[in-house]
C-alpha cells in the first residue's frame, strides 16, 4: 500500500501508477510509428502525383496538401472519429452488420497519418526536386525505364535530401499523438490524467509525461544522426 511520505522504491514514487504510464507510453509510440508508416505511404503517393501525375491527380494531391495543412489536427481527428462512426453505422445498416465501434486507436492513426502524409508529401517533393538532373539523365541514358530510374536513382538520392524534413515532421508527429487522449485513447497523456486525478497530483504526472516526451525526442535525435551518417556517403564535406 502507498503511504504518503514514505517514498522508497521507484514504483511507489508515482503511487504505483508508473507501470500504467509506461504502458501508455508504449501505446503512444505505437500510434506514432503506425501513423508514420501511413504518412510515408501517403507522402510518396502525394509527391509522385504532384511531380509526375496527370492534371487530375496533380489537382487532387494539391487540394489534399492545402486543405490538410489549413485545418487544425484536432478538428480533423474529431471529424474522422465521430463522422467515421456515422458512416460505419450507415453502411452497416445497409449491409446488415452488427454495430461496429470506431476505435479511437484506428481513428487516431488514420487522422495523424493522413495529416502528416501531406507534410511528408511536401518534404519528398522538395527532396525529389533537389536530386540532380544529370543523375536521372544518366539513368535514362543507360536504358533504364522510368520506374527503374525512380527505384535505383531518384529514390535513394532523394532520401538524403529528405532526412532533415522527415525528422522535423516526425518530431511534430510524436507531439501530435498527445491529441489521441482527447478522443479517449489511453495513451500516456490519458494515463497521466487518470493517475494525477486519483492521487491529486496532476502536476507531477503531467511533468513526468512531458519528460517522457523529451526522452522520445532525444532518442529520435540519435536516430537521425545515424541516418544522416548512413546516407551522407559520397558527399563533399
Amino acid at each position, binding site marked *: 500500500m502507498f503511504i504518503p511520505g514514505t517514498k522508497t522504491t521507484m514504483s511507489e514514487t508515482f503511487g504505483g501508477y508508473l507501470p500504467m504510464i509506461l504502458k501508455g507510453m508504449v501505446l503512444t509510440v505505437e500510434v506514432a510509428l503506425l501513423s508514420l508508416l501511413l504518412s510515408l505511404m501517403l507522402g510518396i503517393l502525394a509527391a509522385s502525383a504532384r511531380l509526375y501525375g496527370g492534371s487530375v491527380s496533380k489537382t487532387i494531391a494539391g487540394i489534399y496538401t492545402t486543405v490538410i495543412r489549413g*485545418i487544425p489536427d484536432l*478538428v480533423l481527428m474529431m471529424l474522422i472519429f465521430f463522422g467515421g462512426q456515422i458512416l460505419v453505422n450507415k453502411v452497416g445498416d445497409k449491409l446488415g452488420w452488427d454495430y461496429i465501434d470506431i476505435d479511437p486507436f484506428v481513428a487516431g492513426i488514420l487522422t495523424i497519418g493522413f495529416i502528416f502524409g501531406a507534410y511528408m508529401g511536401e518534404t519528398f517533393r522538395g527532396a525529389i526536386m533537389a536530386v540532380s538532373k544529370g543523375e536521372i539523365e544518366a539513368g535514362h541514358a543507360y536504358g533504364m525505364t522510368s520506374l527503374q530510374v525512380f527505384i535505383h536513382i531518384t529514390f535513394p538520392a532523394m532520401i538524403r535530401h529528405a532526412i532533415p524534413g522527415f525528422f522535423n515532421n516526425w*518530431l511534430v508527429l510524436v507531439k501530435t499523438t*498527445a491529441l489521441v487522449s*482527447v478522443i479517449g485513447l489511453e495513451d500516456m497523456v490519458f494515463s497521466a490524467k487518470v493517475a494525477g486525478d486519483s492521487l491529486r497530483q496532476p502536476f507531477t504526472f*503531467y*511533468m513526468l509525461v*512531458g519528460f517522457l*516526451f523529451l526522452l522520445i525526442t532525444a532518442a529520435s535525435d540519435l536516430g537521425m544522426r545515424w541516418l544522416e551518417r548512413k546516407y551522407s556517403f559520397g558527399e563533399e564535406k
Partner: protein
Amino acid sequence: MDFSIILDNLPLLFKGLGLTLQLLIISLIIGFILAVPLAIMAASRNPWLRIPVKVFIYIFRGTPLLIQIFIIYYGLSQFDWLRESVLWVVFKEAYWCAIIAFALNTAAYTAEIFRGAILQTPKGEIEAAEACGMSRFDQYRHIILPSALRRSIPMYGNEVIFMLHATVLAGVITLVDLFGAAKIINSRYYAPFESFISAGLFYLVITFTIVFIFKLAENHFLKHLKR
C-alpha cells in the same frame, strides 16, 4: 447532412471565432515581445545567457503543447500555496492559462526562428557596423535586428498558422473557441460532419488570410531579396 443546424448556430460559431482570434492575437503579441530578447540571448556567446534560454526553447519545442497547457491549467492546482496566493485569480481561469501556455510556446518557437536569422546575418554587415564605431546595442538596433526580423518573415508566417491551429486546445480546456463551438454543436445535434466541416472551413479561411497577409509583408519587406 443538414447544414441548417449550422445556420441556426452561426452566432455561436462567430462568437467562437472571436475568441479564437483574440487568443491568437494576444498570445502572438506576448510571444513576439518575449521572443526578441530570448533570441538575442540564445544567439549570445555568453553561456550564462545562452544555456538557460536554450533549455527553455528545447523544453517547449520538445513537449506537446497539450501537456504544457494541462500542466498550467490542471497541474498548478496541486500546489496549495499557489491556490492561496493572489496569482490564483489568474491561474484558475482557463482563459489566462491558455494565453500563458500559447504565449510561452510561441515565444520558444519564434525565438528559435529569430536566433537562426540573427546568426545568419552576413559578417560584412556587422564588421561595417563595428568600423562605424557602433556599440553592440546599436548594432542590434540598427543592423542585426531589422535585417534578421525581415528574413524571418516567411518562417514566422508558418509559426502564426501553427499557432492558429494550436488554439483549438483552448476548446479542450472548456473554453468556447471556434473548435469548442463546433464541439458543442456536435454534442447537441450529433452532427459531426456539419459542425467540424464548418469549423474546418472557418480555419481554412483564416489560414488563407494569414498566408495572404504574409505574402504582402514579404513583398513589402523582402523586395530587396527578390530575384
